[in-house]
């Protein structure tokens, strides 16, 4: 009991010393430690650097400085709860959990507290239904769209017919990895392919038996829903059994430099989806160099700039800033509240022109958020790893997902959530 009292007293002193509420506060529930650090770090760096850029170059959003509150979760849900609770009192206007597990946990909490959550390309897919998930946004795309885009790419490769083919899904055995299964089952029915499910347990270093099965059954394609160290191991194992790399397609969370570099030259030809461009050939990176890196304000080690996940973090931050700008225009306040931020997100219109004006021309798909659609239009592209040049090459245009299959699934899953939690869907007309 004595220890508890000590802890309570000490923490209370710390809490009292915290600065008062001000500015626009964006918490970043990052993870730079643990088995997922290789992927969590570049995202957190990109997210932080873009906010630093906005502060340094533009003096904040509409004159309001951004305060980034970084909190280390280690991809652990219990630490995620601690981070959420400790940052929400600081006036947080938007949460970016970067973990499907933590997102699931925050969905009811943040909805009750009235703070929006943006889980772009992860989290609960059916949150795309804004009528049920008022506070949750997962634009520009989500896992079910991703699964559909991957299958469309395979269809494209096979000349439009994949009936009788076998597609294996190698997935992280968690909420994240299980998300696409239902969509893939529906798509298997529609296109007549066989689906093999191969779960990999956290943290994902042990995949020998799964790859033995792949070696034995020789599926025509392998899709991967992996994260952290699991990606590197999977690509290495695929190389070991000489699986044709261009038939191995990862979701956007399995397609960063850190994932393929470990396999060396053997990783050449590995494909992954993405919903934004890789590389640093965009004008905004000059500003980042000038205002952030050269000023010594880069987050982390500053060595991740232009990598896939850095760009994704930057993209998420850019969407947050644009939503905040929209919120300022709508409400007329510069110091926006979480509720105003939510309105801003719901009216976000990411056009080509806007992205070009920000120094990110063609960086991501153009999309519009509406009250009913919090998920964007789901466009994603395929990129391929070139091991000699050590870079990702984009090999397709943006591919549209099969909405005919996915929309009913979203309706069904969000209706189940609404029924479970006694939510009456909003009227979005």
């Amino acid at each position, binding site marked *: *009991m*004595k*220890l*508890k009292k000590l*802890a*309570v007293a*000490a*923490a209370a002193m*710390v*809490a009292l*010393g*915290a600065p008062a509420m001000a500015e626009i506060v964006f918490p970043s529930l*990052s993870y*730079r*430690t643990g088995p997922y*650090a290789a992927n969590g*770090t570049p995202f957190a760096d990109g997210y932080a650097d873009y906010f630093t850029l906005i502060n340094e170059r533009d003096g904040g959003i509409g004159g309001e400085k951004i305060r980034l509150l*970084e*909190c*280390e979760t*280690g991809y*652990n*849900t*219990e630490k995620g*709860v*601690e981070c959420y*609770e*400790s940052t*929400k*009192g600081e006036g947080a206007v938007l949460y970016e959990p970067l973990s*499907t*597990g933590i997102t*699931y*946990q925050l*969905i*009811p*909490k943040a*909805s*009750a*507290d009235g703070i929006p959550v943006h889980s772009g390309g992860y989290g*609960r*897919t*059916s949150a795309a239904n804004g009528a049920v998930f008022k506070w949750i946004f997962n634009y520009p795309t989500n896992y079910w769209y991703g699964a559909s885009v991957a299958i469309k790419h395979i269809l494209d490769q096979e000349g439009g017919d994949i009936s009788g083919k076998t597609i294996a899904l190698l997935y992280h*055995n*968690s*909420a*994240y990895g*299980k*998300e696409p*299964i*239902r969509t893939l089952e529906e798509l298997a029915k529609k296109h007549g392919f066989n689906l093999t499910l191969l*779960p990999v*347990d*956290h943290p994902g270093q042990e995949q020998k038996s799964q790859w033995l099965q792949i070696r034995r059954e020789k599926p025509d394609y392998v899709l991967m829903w992996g994260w952290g160290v699991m990606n590197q191991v999977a690509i290495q194992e695929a190389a070991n059994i000489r699986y044709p790399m261009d038939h191995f397609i990862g979701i956007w969370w399995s397609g960063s430099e850190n994932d393929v570099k470990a396999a060396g030259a053997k990783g050449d030809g590995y494909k992954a989806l993405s919903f934004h461009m890789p590389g640093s050939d965009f004008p905004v990176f000059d500003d980042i160099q000038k205002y952030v890196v050269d000023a010594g304000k880069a987050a*982390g080690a500053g060595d991740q700039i232009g990598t896939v996940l850095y760009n994704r973090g930057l993209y998420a931050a850019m969407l947050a800033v644009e939503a905040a700008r929209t919120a300022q225009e709508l409400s007329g306040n510069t110091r926006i509240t979480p509720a105003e931020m939510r309105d801003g997100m719901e009216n976000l219109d990411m056009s080509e022109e806007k992205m070009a004006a920000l120094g990110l021309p063609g960086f991501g798909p153009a999309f519009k958020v509406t009250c009913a659609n919090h998920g964007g239009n789901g466009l994603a592209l395929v990129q391929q790893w070139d091991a000699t040049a050590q870079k990702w090459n984009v090999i397709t245009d943006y591919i549209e997902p099969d909405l005919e299959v996915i929309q009913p699934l979203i309706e069904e*899953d969000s209706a*189940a959530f609404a029924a*479970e*939690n*006694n939510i009456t869907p909003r009227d979005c007309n």
Partner: protein
Amino acid sequence: MIYREAGDFKTSYREDSQTFPIKLDRRAYWTLMVVAFAVVPFVINDYWANAVLLPFLIYAIAALGLNILTGYAGQVSLGTGGFMAVGAYAAYKLMTAFPDVPILFHVLIAGAITALVGMAFGLPSLRIKGFYLAVATLAAQFFLVWLFNKVPWFFNYSASGMINAPERTMFGAAITGAEASAPARYLFCLILTVALAWIARNLTRGSVGRKWMAIRDMDIAAEIIGVNPLTAKLSAFAVSSFFIGVAGALLFAVYLGAVEVGEAFGIQKSFLILFMIIIGGLGSIFGSFAGAAFMVLMPVLLKNVLVDGFGWATDLAAHFQFMIVGALIIVFLVFEPHGLAQLWRLAKEKLRLWPFPH
């Protein structure tokens, strides 16, 4: 001077064998109870409830449970995480199947279901002991996690395999779900923790506990003096699993609200709780609390001090946190292998003899 039995006369056996023989201890205990029940609920906020007190109380229950099995009955178990998962999934199935029943019943029945499962996995303990039993319970850990991942019935066929706690009430106040207030959740866990700690204390100093300890100290000798190893070991598994099941149910329903079995109830959880009782003190009720406090509160405290206080980078602080907590564990165990409870006991002994400790 102040910490003395002198003058505190006991006139009955009952008084003589009470839990806190010294008046100051009794006063401290009742003050703590008054503060915990009558003061904290009025000042508690979401941060204190969700980040500090709920995990402390819930892990204290789990540590009590494991301490009964390992500390008192001497049966090493690495299946704690799996048994907590049983409690959590039982609570989830009950909550969704019977939405109108008060949450307390769900939690207690979830505990009872875990007790049955624990007894089933405790059967090997009649034949094997020590490290071999640890391996058998480790199998339980992996089997249970695999089961809850594999069979969709357990998570009501949800797409992601996650279980979410819907809103359930007790006396009209929401205890689970996002709308539940911090005081309601805290009080719910506090009442269960205090009740279970009281049960644990009284079980362990009664005939049941003495049988457990006899088995722990030397099972053959215990058998010769008439302790039935079957009932003693299985009752230890049952009571321990009940506690752990309740902790699992609370962890899921009240504290986290949404869990996936591999992440929340993996092998790390089994180790975490084992560390709690080793650091706190095997075979000690106070040790269970001290160990839970150390393992739960120390990282939060360090994070607050290093990141918010000193302004360190979050990853640096996280790494230092591992090192500091790890170093403290080693230091504690080097200086006092019997844990924080023994340190506390020694401190009290010295205080009694003060100013002439020997």
